[in-house]
């Protein structure tokens, strides 16, 4: 199997999808000739021509709005928003249009579109290159929301998303593009080629939407997380000495509640972890669901570890980011509750 970065895996997924289905079209700011500021679409224009992969004007509402029209026509647009922080101008098109097209037309018009965007912090990107807006999508019915944590999943999930008959928000943790990152920003950078999940099968395969995966088996507590934080959680489990089970949700909506409930019912303790700001983050939904489903199994209050409720600051990046030390400390406190 080929070793790939997450960028290469995403590009490969797009290549496989475009090769298999002429209806797949890819566009966004700088994605055409140049191949995207993170190079996720590099080479696609040269291979498939500039009407299948092209640059757009800088107008996120236009990108998504045009994509909706194309999807309704019968194409399968995979659009890129350059950073998740810039998705808000497109929010109306996503919420009021893409998410409701099937419903309000009683199935006459549908929106099989994927909206890809780099998400999360860890690159000193400050307020406008670091945000994690997933909760703003999970609250919107009609959307599916996906966050891969490694190249193998990224390709398989993206192929599932492209095949999906409904709009999918595909959030790519940019700090994972080039290698797994466990929050130890002061240690040497590791590359995907040293990681098992950097092995990406060739050609077409899928990782199904709505299925979580247990990344680490454990008995003492469950960590529910996704994206970059999966790696932080694994580091924290190792460093805290707490035998935590780490669940990589992969798809936030629809959520694989079965896997979640099974784990928490077993461990009796639950830590919810994400980079996004705490209040009304997706962790709130996870905590609300878990306390409802696993109430009688819970031996301690569910803890949430998340980004502080401030804008994502530039210089303070590592005070802001919920790194392994903070997670480990929370884990220890979680298992100490008698």
């Amino acid at each position, binding site marked *: 199997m080929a070793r790939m970065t997450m960028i290469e895996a995403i590009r490969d997924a797009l290549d496989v999808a475009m090769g298999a289905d002429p209806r797949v079209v890819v566009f966004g700011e700088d994605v055409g000739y140049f191949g995207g500021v993170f190079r996720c679409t590099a080479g696609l224009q040269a291979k498939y021509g500039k009407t299948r992969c092209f640059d757009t004007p800088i107008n996120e509402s236009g990108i998504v709005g045009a994509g*909706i029209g194309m999807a309704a026509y019968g194409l399968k647009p995979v659009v890129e928003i350059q950073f998740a922080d810039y998705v808000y101008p497109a929010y109306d098109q996503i919420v009021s249009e893409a998410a409701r097209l099937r419903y*309000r037309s009683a199935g006459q018009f549908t929106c099989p579109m994927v909206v890809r965007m780099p998400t999360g912090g860890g690159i000193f990107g400050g307020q406008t290159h670091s945000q994690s807006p997933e909760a703003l999508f999970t609250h919107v*019915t009609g959307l599916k929301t996906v966050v891969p944590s490694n190249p193998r999943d990224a390709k398989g999930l993206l192929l599932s998303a492209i095949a999906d008959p409904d709009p999918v928000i595909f959030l790519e943790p940019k700090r994972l593009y080039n290698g797994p990152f466990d929050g130890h920003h002061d240690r040497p950078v590791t590359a995907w080629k040293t990681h098992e999940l950097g092995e990406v099968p060739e050609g077409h395969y899928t990782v199904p939407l709505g299925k979580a995966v247990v990344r680490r088996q454990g008995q003492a507590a469950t960590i529910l997380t996704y994206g970059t934080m999966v790696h932080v959680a694994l580091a924290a489990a190792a460093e805290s000495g707490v035998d935590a089970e780490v669940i990589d949700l992969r798809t936030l909506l629809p959520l694989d509640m079965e896997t979640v409930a099974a784990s928490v019912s077993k461990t009796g303790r639950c830590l919810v972890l994400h980079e996004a700001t705490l209040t009304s983050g997706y962790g709130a939904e996870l905590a609300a669901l878990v306390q409802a489903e696993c109430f009688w199994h819970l031996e301690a209050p569910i803890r949430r570890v998340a980004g502080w409720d401030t804008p994502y600051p530039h210089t303070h990046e590592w005070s802001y980011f919920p790194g392994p030390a903070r997670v480990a400390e929370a884990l220890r406190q979680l298992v100490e509750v008698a």
Partner: protein
Amino acid sequence: MPDPDALPPLSLTVPEPEVRPGGQPDFSHVAIPRAGTVRRPPVDADPEEIRDLAFTIIRVMNREGEAVGPWAEALDFTPDDLLEGLRHMMTLRIYDARMLNAQRQQKTSFYMQHLGEEAISCGFQRALAPGDMNFPTYRQAGLLIAAGYPLSAMMNQVFSNAEDPMRGRQLPVCYSSREHGFFTISGNLATQYIQAVGWAMASAISGDRKISAAWIGDGSTAESDFHAALVFASTYKAPVVLNVVNNQWAISTFQGIARGGSGTFAARGLGFGIPSLRVDGNDYLAVLAVAKWATERARRNLGPTMIEYVTYRAGGHSTSDDPSAYRPAEESNAWPLGDPILRLKNHLIRLGVWSDDRHAQAEAEILAEITAAQKRAEAIGTLHHGQHPSPVDMFEDVYAEMPPHLLKQRHEAGF
């Protein structure tokens, strides 16, 4: 360094309509060229060279009911075609009147009429072919009527009854029929303008021959998605017709608030190098003529065209609105472009293919037809009576396949 203190203080300009309730309606500031006097350029004309068409009004029918000038000459509709057009407009007007009344009787929650604007949607549809797609607003039901969508289906939706094709999920007038080239109407203004452009781009990407038509009101041109649409249409030369229905009002707000300092709404298109025409929206023949010109441009891959239809919203914005609070009640009568149905009727009489009697007879026929259809629809149900879509339907079509959490909620709801 400049010294601002040398000048008087600034003040804010807030545009106002010429008259408010109590005042005397006055449209003398609306410059109306005589029918037949505006030139008709070839469809591949350079947009810069036809700028004047964005600042005038293309008109075909004169006061005598004659069709005159170059736009008339380019039309290839038979008298029968025009009689059909008249019937579409009459049908829409009578349907509107019935539904308005039904709303007063609480048979529906809400209704929006087209009074005075019938020529625009009824006429434009005639330039489209099967497979083409409109992205309409709530004031273009004439597109459906002219495309042959059954009135009974419209009524079932208006009455929210068990046969509502939208299964009770949509507002009464927010119709949808893919088959009839009518995209599902959004309650959110302007969002669909850019979708129409995307749809047209998809056709071009696919090497197909379908074109699309975007629709927006004067007030809604202020929305940002209007800009998105013009940018994309201009850049990719999308085969789309960008229609702006300037009916002078946006709820209580006169068109000057959206238009600001530009002379016309059509002028907006010029800023993008998009050929832009301004047309008498109450002149069915003029609407046909410009629609033909613009759709031909799109079909010949010459790119987008913007059309501003000058018209007047003779009724209230919706059944929730009483326009006498913000404009003189007589303003509608003072509107100088006349009534689109009367004008086409006069033309047909002038052609010798129609008469007052036949008109009255047609009116009676249509009314009978609509009344009969309404009876059938009402027999199925109305908003508060009879049969309605099943609440189970409420949970369907959120996704292609119902995800577990929604299934759970459906069970919780008792289904």
